[in-house]
């Protein structure tokens, strides 16, 4: 199966290790992965901030960049949801609306693609750790992907995942929300970390670099001994030896 990988700006710049792991997992599952070099960002920061004229330019560029793709796969539920949202953006432009619909129909989040399209739940990963999972709002609510990551994690050898209390609450990232509403965002991320601590997990797993950058950044600042990992890193943990591979360590 041929897929076009959309890396997302955060993974590209801050967490290339996450993206490499995602690519390696997909390749191991038999996918032929290509990376259209012209890709940029999904445009969500501009869209959510109300800059819709700018977002349309970005969206047109992304639609054209991925026009030839059979499948678009991205290691972020939030960015995948944004590509789906181009449909809303072009409601009044029939020509682009059609193209937006085509892109939306072939765009999948990484775990969603593995479970729903490749129909694989056991990717052959092994990772010995006590972990908990942050479910990410856009992934679950906007994209509607709730089960896929859990199914994949259930099959990781040696991994114990304790349910996260108040899992439904946002971590306080929210894109520009995290810099515009700092005092509120701070309370949200601190409550999230309190719940993570209640699980006694050594590792927090998530499927969105935005949420992980927020929670991880706060954990770092507070000097808490919790590792933060993207699910792609966990799923690509078969060849490596035990222990965690903290997202930040994995960036070189």
């Amino acid at each position, binding site marked *: 199966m041929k897929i076009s990988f959309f890396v997302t700006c955060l993974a590209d710049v*801050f967490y290339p290790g996450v993206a490499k792991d995602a690519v390696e997992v997909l390749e191991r599952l038999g996918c032929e992965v290509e990376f259209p070099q012209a890709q940029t960002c999904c445009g969500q920061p501009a869209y959510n901030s*109300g800059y819709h004229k700018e977002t349309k330019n970005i969206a047109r560029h992304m639609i054209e960049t991925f026009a030839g793709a059979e499948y678009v796969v991205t290691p972020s539920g939030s960015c995948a949801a944004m590509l789906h949202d181009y449909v809303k953006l072009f409601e009044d432009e029939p020509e682009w609306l059609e193209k937006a619909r085509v892109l939306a129909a072939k765009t999948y989040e990484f775990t969603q693609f593995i479970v729903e399209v490749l129909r694989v739940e056991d990717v052959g990963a092994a990772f010995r750790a006590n972990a908990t999972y942050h479910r990410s709002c856009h992934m679950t609510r906007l994209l509607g992907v709730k089960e896929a990551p859990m199914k994949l994690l259930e099959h990781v050898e040696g991994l114990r995942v304790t349910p996260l209390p108040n899992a439904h609450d946002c971590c306080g990232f*929210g894109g520009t929300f995290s810099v515009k*509403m700092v005092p509120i965002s701070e309370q949200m991320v601190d409550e999230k970390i309190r719940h993570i601590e209640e699980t006694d997990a050594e590792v927090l797993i998530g499927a969105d670099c935005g949420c992980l*950058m927020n929670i991880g950044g*706060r954990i770092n600042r507070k000097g808490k001994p919790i590792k933060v990992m993207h699910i792609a890193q966990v799923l690509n943990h078969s060849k490596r030896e035990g222990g965690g591979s903290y997202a930040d360590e994995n960036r070189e």
Partner: protein
Amino acid sequence: MSGQPITFFGRVEKALGDEQLRKAVPFTQDRLRAGRFQAADELGNIEEWRDLAAQIRAHTLENLDSYLEQLALNVEKNGGYVHFASTAADAVNHVLRIAQEKNARSVVKSKSMVSEEIHLNKHLEAQGLRVIESDLGEYIIQLAKETPSHLIAPAIHKTRAQVAELFSEVAGRALSDETEVLCQFAREELRREFLEADIGISGCNFAVAESGSIVLISNEGNARLTTTLPKVHIAIMGMERLVPTWSELDIVVSMLTRSATGQKISVYMTVMSGPRRRGDIDGPEEFHLIVLDNGRSDILGTAYQEVLKCIRCGACLNVCPVYRHIGGHAYGGVYSGPIGAVLTPLFEGYEEWKELPYSSSLCGACTEVCPVKIPLHDLLIEHRKDEVEQGHVSWQEKFAFKVFGYLTSHPSLYDKAVRTGHVATGWLAKEGVIEKGPGLLAGWTSIRDLPRPAKQSFREWWKQEKEGRGRDN
């Protein structure tokens, strides 16, 4: 609002520093939220119910003029009076005029957010009328000289101990903070007020156009006393709060109680179709219905029309992670939470309320539970769009997004920007982490670390590894 700071961030700071609020709000929020989700599970097909309720509300709004006309005709046929109020002031004046005609001295109210919207109590008291709130939560905040901080749980921000303190002051003796003791005290106090009041004022959860009926949903029985004991009953409703027939009422009431508290049906559901008739053993001698516009008709036909589907269940507040921490008063308007963040700028403009559309992480929890499928977080984005277009954002932000938009639609420039990320942040980073960033980054790094952009971006790695590998093969 009494005692609240003027600015949004001032109010947020006050709320975050209020230890009682920080305990009380999440506690009740968790309970209400759990109730809603359990009720949804029990229904089994909640999405179909939401679809149906949303269709009913949308249909009603599309035909609002004819249903309002039908409602008014039927209320009058039942012997009631109907008054249309285009502004808050008009609505207040209708009430004041009726009070004057009846030589009224005291008013007892059951819970009504619309009466909060028109700041009715303040105006009535200014005319020398005694006003008593009879809903327990409303009674509490009236004693505390505050305003409701939640659509259905007005005193959600208060702990039992704080309520005991307020009631003890009225009682002139120390009351314990046991729920039974406090309720008993309120019951005794309020019973006297019901018997003495000249006018009862209620809101209206739904009006039924086909029969000219007013429906009140409550759990305390106070709405029934308010609407039957005083000689005059005035109901105030937002002009959108009606359903065509009893069949639709069934659906929207089912969704209201389940979404609000998780109840299949509230303890009381009171239906009034006009004043007391010959042979009736109770009921008011006179019934007035005030239908309030106050900016609603301006929303019809705009991108925000769907907000008028709202049935004020409060479910969006009960799931909102922002509301959870800051409570209702920080929003500053009459309506709080996600629905308030959408409504208040529509009613009162951006000038004073420009932060509200940003007081959301756009997590979508509100949109997910809304029983009438208002796309609340999308409407918040719509507000942001309007704020940008109308110039309510800083030039720095505008400039930043111009640059962002340009870079992200010009791949070769974007490529360069990504590649230089690591080097460009060298002066900021220490051991791979940025602890203090300039400009927009400062907001981020004030409470969190920011990883330094990686030495080699993914795109560089790909070019090197994959394309190299491609040549080797």
